[in-house]
């Protein structure tokens, strides 16, 4: 069921009757409301904007349910061409409706390979065009598309009252000159609400965790029976040594913190706004070096990069981020050791510990060698290393 608080502009087919049942089927609505299996939900139209008139047509719709705001991008086509365009996506259909020219099928436009191209132009103010788009798996509260393998758009489904931390962080860091991120290419906002964020897509990027696993796998394989022996001395000599990469990641992390301090300020106790969810799956290696990702949040899943559990931005010592990265290295070591046979685990554990120590050391070396970081993080290597260990233990708890 739908109540109307905002009239749909001329040119938009009469879709309101379908909104309640359609939204009731969506996992992002079910999760947000904690309602599963309902045939419909009570939805109130808040705002409808016609993005593209005619056939096919495109509109952006904001709907409120139980005090929460949701975003839908609707498309419509004539009944002949619509089924072909939506082949394989029957769940995207809202239902038949009428526009000025006759009957049309109304559906979720993110399932329409042509309309999502128009949506890119909308979200970037016409600055970007693409010839091809593909959907990618994403978290619950948004849908993601990749355009021409060069742009990545997050279209937010669940709309928050405040500026999304992701938008705030990405634009803040880019404004502060931080180059180690997928550069923002467009930001779609209406009435102060963030509807979509378009960024550079880095096709060759892979998670830091993958690199770490590859490195440790190489070291541990050298300890397998018949593969020679490996000792602590071999840790830095292993073919897949991660040390230099960790040193570079340390430097990038320091630059991240300097940029965060520049963009969002610094507390009197030296605390700064943090990434807040900083681990090896949030940093990616690509041909141009390391980039930092994972500024995104999913309010439905409780992941809040850059935010404390209260939902407020996480402001703390920059070493908290560093400690989280170190914990991530430890986790990789734990997982790799767990994959060995019981007989080889003790030796693998020793090697993995040596690997972890080396890479934590290189990470801190790269971090502390960065110009300017000394002002944010007081202390020498030994002292910083101890504080990071303490913070990591604290975070583990």
């Amino acid at each position, binding site marked *: 069921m739908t109540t109307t608080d905002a009239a749909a502009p001329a040119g938009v087919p009469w879709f309101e009757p379908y909104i309640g049942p359609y939204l009731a089927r969506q996992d992002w609505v079910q999760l947000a409301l904690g309602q599963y299996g309902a045939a419909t939900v009570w939805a109130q139209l808040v705002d409808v904007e016609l993005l593209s008139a005619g056939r096919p047509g495109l509109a952006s719709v904001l709907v409120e349910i139980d005090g929460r705001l949701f975003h839908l991008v609707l498309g419509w086509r004539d009944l002949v061409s619509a089924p072909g365009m939506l082949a394989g996506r029957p769940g995207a259909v809202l239902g038949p409706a009428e526009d000025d020219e006759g009957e049309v099928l109304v559906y979720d436009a993110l399932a329409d390979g042509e309309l999502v191209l128009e949506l890119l132009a909308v979200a970037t103010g016409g600055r970007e065009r693409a010839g091809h788009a593909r959907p990618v798996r994403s978290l619950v509260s948004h849908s993601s598309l990749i355009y021409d393998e060069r742009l990545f758009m997050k279209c937010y489904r669940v709309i928050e009252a405040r500026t999304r931390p992701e938008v705030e962080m990405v634009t803040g860091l880019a404004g502060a000159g931080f180059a180690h991120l997928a550069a923002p290419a467009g930001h779609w906002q209406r009435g102060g609400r963030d509807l979509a964020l378009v960024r550079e897509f880095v096709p*060759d990027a892979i998670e830091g965790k993958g690199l770490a696993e590859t490195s440790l796998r190489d070291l541990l394989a050298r300890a397998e029976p018949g593969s020679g022996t490996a000792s602590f001395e071999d840790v830095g000599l292993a073919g897949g040594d991660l040390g230099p990469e960790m040193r570079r990641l340390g430097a990038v992390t320091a630059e991240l913190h300097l940029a965060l301090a520049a963009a969002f300020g610094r507390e009197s106790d030296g605390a700064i706004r943090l990434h807040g969810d900083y681990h090896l799956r949030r940093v990616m290696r690509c041909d141009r070096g390391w980039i930092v990702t994972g500024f995104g949040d999913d309010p439905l899943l409780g992941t809040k990069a850059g935010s404390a559990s209260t939902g407020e931005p996480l402001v703390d010592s920059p070493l908290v981020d560093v400690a989280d990265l170190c914990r991530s290295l430890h986790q990789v070591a734990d997982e790799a050791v767990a994959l060995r046979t019981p007989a080889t685990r003790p030796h693998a554990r020793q090697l993995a510990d040596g690997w972890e120590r080396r890479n934590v050391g290189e990470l801190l070396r790269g971090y502390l060698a960065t110009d300017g970081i000394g002002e944010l993080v007081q202390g020498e290597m030994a002292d910083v290393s101890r504080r990071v260990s303490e913070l990591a233990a604290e975070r583990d708890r």
Partner: protein
Amino acid sequence: MPRRTPAAPRRTPADPRWYERAVFYELSPRTFFDSSGDGVGDLAGIRAKLDYLEWLGVDCLWLLPFYPSPLRDGGYDVSDFMSVAPECGSLDDLSALVEDAHRRGIRIISDLVMNHTSDVHPWFVESRSSRDNPKADWYLWADDDQGYPDVRVVFVDAEPSNWTYDAGRQQYYWHRFFHHQPDLNYDNPEVVEAMLGVVRFWLDLGLDGFRLDAAAYLCKAEGTTCENLPATHEMLKLVRKEVDAAYPDKVLLAEVNQWPSDVVDYFGDGDECHMAFHFPLMPRMFMAVRREQRFPITEILAETPALPDGCQWGIFLRNHDELTLEMVTAEDRDYMYAEYARDPRMRRNIGIRRRLATLVDNDRRIAELLHAFLLSLPGAPVLYYGDEILMGDNIYLGDRDAVRTPMQWTPDRNGGFSTADFAQLYLPPLMDPVHGYQALNVEAERRDSSSFLHWLRRMLEVRRDYPVFASGSLEVLSADNPSVVAYVRTPRDGAGAGDGDGAGAERTPSVLCVHNLSRFAQPAHLSLAKFGDCTPVELLGRVPFPAVGARTFSVTLAPYGIYWFELRPEDGAPA
């Protein structure tokens, strides 16, 4: 004066862009095959092995210097530019070799050492004889050794300076390489004309072009590194102009050990060199395999600029020199030494003097993987003689002779290289239990249908069937596994098969290459959506894989596994 021999009649089809698709085969005439039984390989010996080279499927031979030389630098110290060293044969032997090779569709290029001569070359002998002889300015002389202070020393193991004092003339002369290789002075128009005469001489004899040795150093200017100078480019353009005017389907291949962004200048606007070696790619392929991750390769590909039309990279795994590490960072150099040259004898200058097989610990899977890169990345592949049977090296020989030991043809005396007494041989053949000729030779490899030699020959066939490997664009695909590198070679707009006989209008299919850099089996998920609905057909077995479209294409690769797929559109037309 050398005798001029009429040009050999051409049987290779007229095709001014043949080099773009060619597979080159580099060989050392003195160690390839000795036809005369004097212990030194010769031109007639190469001719005797053309059957084999034709069977292997190479398109062009690159001959290391066969000119008269005191041989203090493997023949790169030339003492007569317009003659054949007696131990290598005669000009008639060269003409016969060229004619026979052309009849088989094989072209031949040779090294042209423009930068310097031997110190026993008559030009230098005359030049050093006084300060006022007719060739006094054919070389670079100075009263002190302070000139060009910004220039690095290349052979750091042997030379303390680029200047050497000559007691007779009581002056210093400049040499970029060894002190017995004085650099020519290209500011002198007589030198320029003399070298153009050398170019004309060999092209008249029927050679198909030159590998231009040390091309970056020809001209010098104070206050510079004397590398890549505008005057050097002007000199090379002059050579190109000379070649284009009278010899339309020849090739100039520049040896420029520099970053791709600098090397690209050697193509000019398509009016300088036809080809140039891509040096930085080579060590990075080895680095990627040892690190089991793709970034060393993809990073350098990302830094490689597009080439002008009609130009091509020359890419290689190993050659007659050391595996040069000049174009890597100090950190990566240390890494490469630690991984590939733990024995100090394996190191030479700024590099590693080892052959492919020993670099990869004789692991055939890695050798196949590296060759798969060589044959599928943009560029014309250059094979090094002996690598097709995974020959080893001898690090106890001096300088770079470690990688120039005689070709191993048979399990017989001297590996079938020569019937001379062992003590007479130019270099000793390998006789160790792993790489020695008794264990490893062409005869045995040809009889074993599952040998590396047969595998490589098959890969060359496949490459020939898919001209997109030679001329297509390259797009690295997103893969979620760092150990997997995947790329698509796609025909450029308007580019076709182009086989030299005018059949170039037909559009060729795109090819997907997926390679596993790890010694462990690896999964990969690739997005091929932009290529539309298509069926990947594996090229070696013609096995169709499940069709892909918007869905992710998932493959599982064996350790060091290789897949090459033709991307065949669902409607059957080439992609």
